[in-house]
């Protein structure tokens, strides 16, 4: 155990000595980090990892940040580094991993995820995008929606239906699609804030080489589940300071507006207490998971923050009184640049999606109920039907 720490520390020292962060372009540093196995410590050697436990990675990241090295790539290529890498690690061939992992980590190639469709939201396994084999290629037609970073992406993780006559979970196949291929049409999808963080993606006779297939034909659902598990871990994440984010904004607004109403104060303190309890739960979950004793505390974060973010931003808008009826930046139909915390009114609108994106709160409650508490599932009428016979609309 302590040998592992010593090995990691020595490799970090070596990386920092050979590539002093102050004098090294960030992509070059990220590449060198990958080559030394310090990108995803739990990946096998040669694929950006060292074959160690996951918890070593947070130590590596902390040491790099302390030395002034950027870890911005993890945000810039969020879908790739947090989810795509996990999919490739679990399901891809060595050749595929060699092709994709390094440029993903250096952000030379941005990744996106193409699961949801207009007709397949919570029931994503019911999706309709078709892929038909044509020799060594697949021809894809269909529409995906709510795709983050699609307009900047080189690669997309796409789930398609390859066997419409099989029951819905069994007829799916997973590909990595080149988003610059002919027939891929990415259009901004404006959400209720006016901004377009997401895109709609249309596939018109897009050709994907069979070499870009992940895992077996028909195994797409199992690959998709790996992706979704990684997504929920990323969204539920911990590590934020006390009184930061939306609750910090609420406290700041309370002070700025000079509010002193006892009812509002109690409501603010109620939200503060709930946010702090959720934050402590994330910390406890991380610690228990890295100690190898994961428990139910690790599953509640996504749901808790979705509820809290909605309640807190609604409250902060109330604190503004009639100012809360204004929308300071106006509804410009633009693509936002980067991730920044919106003001209370925009936050009130944006957080409506927190209980929808990455698994609706209803689905999260099902998961807690069934997988954590062991409650019986809902009877599924569509489970064994051929996909073509399942009612849709």
């Amino acid at each position: 155990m302590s040998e592992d720490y010593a090995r990691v520390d020595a490799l970090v020292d070596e990386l920092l000595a050979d590539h002093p962060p102050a004098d090294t372009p960030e992509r070059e540093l990220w590449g060198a980090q990958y080559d030394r196995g310090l990108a995803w410590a739990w990946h096998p050697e040669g694929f950006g990892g060292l074959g160690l436990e996951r918890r070593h990675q947070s130590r590596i990241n902390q040491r790099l940040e302390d030395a002034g090295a950027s870890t911005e790539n993890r945000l810039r290529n969020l879908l790739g580094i947090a989810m795509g890498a996990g999919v490739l690690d679990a399901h891809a061939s060595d050749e595929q991993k060699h092709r994709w992992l390094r440029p993903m980590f250096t952000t030379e190639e941005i990744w996106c995820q193409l699961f949801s469709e207009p007709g397949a939201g919570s029931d994503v396994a019911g999706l309709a995008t078709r892929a038909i084999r044509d020799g060594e290629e697949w021809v894809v037609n269909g529409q995906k929606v709510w795709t983050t970073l699609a307009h900047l992406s080189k690669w997309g993780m796409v789930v398609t239906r390859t066997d419409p006559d099989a029951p819905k979970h069994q007829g799916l196949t997973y590909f990595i699609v080149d988003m610059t291929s002919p027939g891929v049409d990415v259009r901004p999808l404006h959400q209720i804030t006016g901004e377009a963080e997401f895109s709609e993606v249309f596939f018109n006779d897009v050709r994907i080489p069979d070499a870009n297939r992940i895992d077996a034909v028909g195994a797409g659902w199992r690959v998709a589940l790996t992706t979704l598990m990684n997504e929920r871990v990323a969204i539920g994440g911990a590590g934020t300071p006390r009184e930061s984010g939306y609750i910090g904004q609420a406290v700041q607004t309370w002070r700025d507006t000079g509010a002193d109403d006892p009812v509002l104060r109690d409501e603010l303190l109620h939200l503060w207490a709930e946010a702090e309890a959720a934050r402590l739960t994330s910390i406890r979950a991380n610690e228990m998971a890295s100690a190898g004793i994961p428990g139910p505390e690790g599953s509640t974060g996504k749901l808790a923050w979705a509820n809290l973010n909605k309640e807190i931003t609604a409250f902060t808008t109330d604190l503004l009184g009639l100012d809360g009826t204004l929308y300071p930046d106006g509804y410009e139909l633009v693509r936002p640049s980067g991730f920044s915390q919106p003001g209370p009114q925009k936050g009130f609108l944006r957080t409506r999606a927190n209980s929808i994106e990455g698994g609706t709160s209803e689905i999260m409650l099902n998961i807690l109920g069934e997988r954590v508490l062991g409650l019986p599932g809902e009877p599924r009428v569509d489970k064994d039907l051929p996909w073509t016979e399942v009612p849709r609309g």
Partner: protein
Amino acid sequence: MADLPAVSFAPTEEQELIRSTARQYLEDRVGLGRVREIMMSDQGFDRVLWKELADMGWPGLAISEGLGGSGLSPVEMSVLLEEMGRLVTPGPFFASAVLATTAIQELATPEQQGDLLPRMATGDTLGALAIFESARNWDATAPQTMASREGDSWVLRGLKRSVIGGAEADFLLVSAVTNQGMAVFVVGSDASGLTVETEPALDPTRPQARITLDSVGVDGSARLGTGDSADGLRRVISLGTAYLAAEQVGGAERCMEMSVDYAKTRHQFGRPIGSYQSIKHRCANMLMKVEHAKSAARYAARVADHPDELAVAAPLAGAVASEAYVWVAGENIQVHGGIGFTWEHDAHIYLKRAKASSLLLGDARHQRDLLGRAIGI
């Protein structure tokens, strides 16, 4: 935001042992059957049970080894309290081994501690904290009860209410105003002029008494410590709130388990009721509230030695755990339907414990007020 104390949530082997020993004893040897017998008895107190707890060393768990205890920390005591909360353990443990013991540790001189704590560690002597006087005033640092100096003695006059464990106690710790600030006095339960009346309690597993002090004379040495005790008493209440939160977490978790177990086996319309989302989601929300309360309560126990942070963490734990327990205990009855509303079913024992506990040291609104003062809101 200043740097917060580093805490570790992972349990030690010793804590795991305390948890498993306590759970096994409470489930096998106490059980809700015995809880019911005790709560329906005249006194709500069972000397046999108390003796069993004392023989296991529980009252002395957090008393130093030099004074006959085990010298463990608030974290270990909280582990034990979570387990005791799961079974709604009846009797004066919280009143004497937690509240009165903590008050003596925080307020008393070494000589006074040497006199009282060894007897409390063995369970031979029981104490109770008598600090509340009016229904919604939980700031116990400005009592109406007066203590006046008469020669070498103090004479106390006043009223105390909601004194849990008051009837069983061998001595009471009574707060009073003196001409030198607020103080807490040790008053023997046989003192002349002292009346202890048991009142019917919402939570019959935790009987409480109303205390009248009609010119009760005590020795000059009966005053705990020296100087004004207001800050010390606030700290006692903070620690008590953190301990109570641990007990609340245990009770809430047990209610959730009862609901989940029932939802798996109870069938209506040909399906287990837990397969319906209205029930499943209710149970999942119980889980979330229990986990949040657990985090807040365990955090508070772990910062007990950091006064500034305890001033935040204790009311945080109190507010979150109180609301969680009352909610989960109430929903537990709803999940059970009609059977959950019967006297025969155990759900009501938890609801009563939950509601009474949420008021004992200050309701959630009061805890949030304290929290707000601590964080500058």
